[in-house]
């Protein structure tokens, strides 16, 4: 749009990250203004699951995490062979949700991300009912092909938005717009529903 920026019209389907089941369709417009600033997004999605189902799944996920005898610590999820220990699936699922908030903030019109691997996770036991985790996640950046290391701190309780703080290591690139400390907490539309896997 001359003088204004670039506007994208998107129609896409979504699927459950864990099972691959269809999770609804979305219609969205994304406007990247001419001057550098976050894009303007409007989005509307259809849902295949109702609130009750989502709540039940969240609770089941929560129980699996609370059920561990000791605080979770682990490395390399998935491992080199693409394997995820079943006991660690809930922890991975939360990392996926938390990473999506990092990717939401970092993506631009020309830079996209994928979660390549959870390098490490450490659980913090809290006095209240919230679950809390410290992650190091590796993001795969396109088209640069770089692997970006980010520290992610996440707290969650079913029925509450995921609270996320993150810091991504700056890239050692000449001519890069020196990325400094980035942190933010997110309560985007996905987070508001809680983890939906």
């Amino acid at each position, binding site marked *: 749009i001359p003088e204004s920026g670039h506007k994208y019209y998107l129609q896409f389907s979504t699927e459950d*990250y864990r099972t691959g089941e269809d999770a609804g369709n979305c219609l969205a417009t994304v406007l990247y203004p001419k001057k550098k600033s976050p894009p303007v997004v409007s989005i509307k999605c259809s849902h295949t699951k109702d609130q009750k189902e989502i709540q039940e799944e969240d609770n089941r996920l929560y129980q699996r995490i609370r059920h561990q*005898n*000791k605080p979770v610590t682990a490395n*390399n999820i*998935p*491992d*080199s*062979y*693409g*394997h995820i*220990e079943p*006991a660690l699936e809930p922890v991975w699922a939360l990392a996926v949700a938390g990473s999506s908030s990092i990717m939401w903030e970092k993506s631009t019109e020309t830079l996209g991300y*994928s*979660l*390549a*691997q959870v390098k490490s996770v450490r659980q913090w036991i809290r006095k209240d009912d919230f679950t809390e985790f410290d992650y190091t996640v*590796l993001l*795969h950046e*396109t*088209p*640069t*092909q*770089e*692997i970006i290391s980010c520290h992610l701190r996440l707290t969650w309780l079913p029925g509450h938005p995921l609270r996320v703080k993150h810091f991504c290591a700056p890239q*050692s*690139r*000449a*001519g890069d717009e020196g990325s400094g400390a980035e942190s933010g907490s997110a309560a985007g539309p996905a987070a508001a529903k809680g983890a939906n896997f």
Partner: protein
Amino acid sequence: MRLPVLLAALVAVATCTETFFGHQVLRVVPQSDEELQKVQELQDLEHLQLDFWLAPRGLGVPIDIRVPFPSLQAVKAHLEAGGVPYSIMIEDVQALLDEEQAQMLRSSRQLPLNTDTFNYEAYHTIEEIYSFMDLLVAENPNLVSKLEIGRSTENRPLYVLKFSTGGTNRPAIWIDTGIHSREWVTQASGVWFAKKIVQDHANNEGVASILETMDIFLEIITNPDGFAFTHTKNRLWRKTRSKHSGSICVGVDPNRNWDAGFGEAGASSNPCTETYHGPYPNSEPEVKSIVDFVKSHGNIKAFISIHSYSQLLLYPYGYTTTPVPDQQELDEVSAKAVAALSSLYGTKYKYGSIITTIYRASGGTIDWTYNQGIKYSFTFELRDTGRYGFLLPAKQILPTAEETWLALKVIMEHARDNLY
């Protein structure tokens, strides 16, 4: 050693419901009747939930006890109060089980005795794949031979398998996998392709008809230094392992090092980046050896370079928006190939030229091969679309290889039927 057997039994239990976090295995070797008695007293305390791996048998004979975490303090106090020395054989049973489990997953990688017992559903090391190649050649000397087309930066051999039923310098198809070392499903698929070609030939089906008039060249580990690095140091390493003067950073992107739009937009001049094109075209021996091979062979008709991930079938160009003269034909072949691929498991692929389908990339393999006159130049990006990305679960190797093979056959057959 009895331990592995017992551990295996525990693993069987562990995979059901029980876990053994913090459990320890203690060993007592009673030297007196008093010591023996102290341990036997423990056997009666049911609430401790002790599991005697080696029950008390007599003096001087070891007693091994698996002690659940909640009982540890009580048991140790009892032994210490009774003056009974003990040692901790296993500090954390669960940790050992996890390691065992991981090992069992890896155990399918013992060196196989023939290519029929080779595990195609697992990821392998360089040594295992080299061993596979030698086995394949030994089992099929009239069809398969192994060529060394050069050496990598770290002096590893660059091996290409040649599949030929005879003739002299027949028109040929080239397939390479693993040029980017972290894309493990590609090398794994390459191994499967090699076996598949041999099987088809033996059963006189599939590509057997192609082999009547054409040769197939398959380079499975196109970037062996990078591949070794992904096994030992960094699973997500992409580039070669070369060091060029003037930088502390290692490696050149082998898919930006070819002489097609070299150094133009779509590659990086910074040695510390993943798309560094290198100091000059073909600076990388891994690339140069293929260039030399292609030029001296002179009769390659189709060239397919395989990557992951994204589920795409791409044709040139990446370095310019100018469409290739054969755009329409390549597009039609792509459509057919992708349809064949999807027919097996429903896997969705997109296709098109590199620059219109993904992004501008210069110095790429198939841009160079196309400009050399190899019309049927294609690149695949295999499974998946980002959920596992480079870390594709091993159980997806077989379906990925199988579906990709159907697309490859479409391309190979088209080349055979449209020789130029």
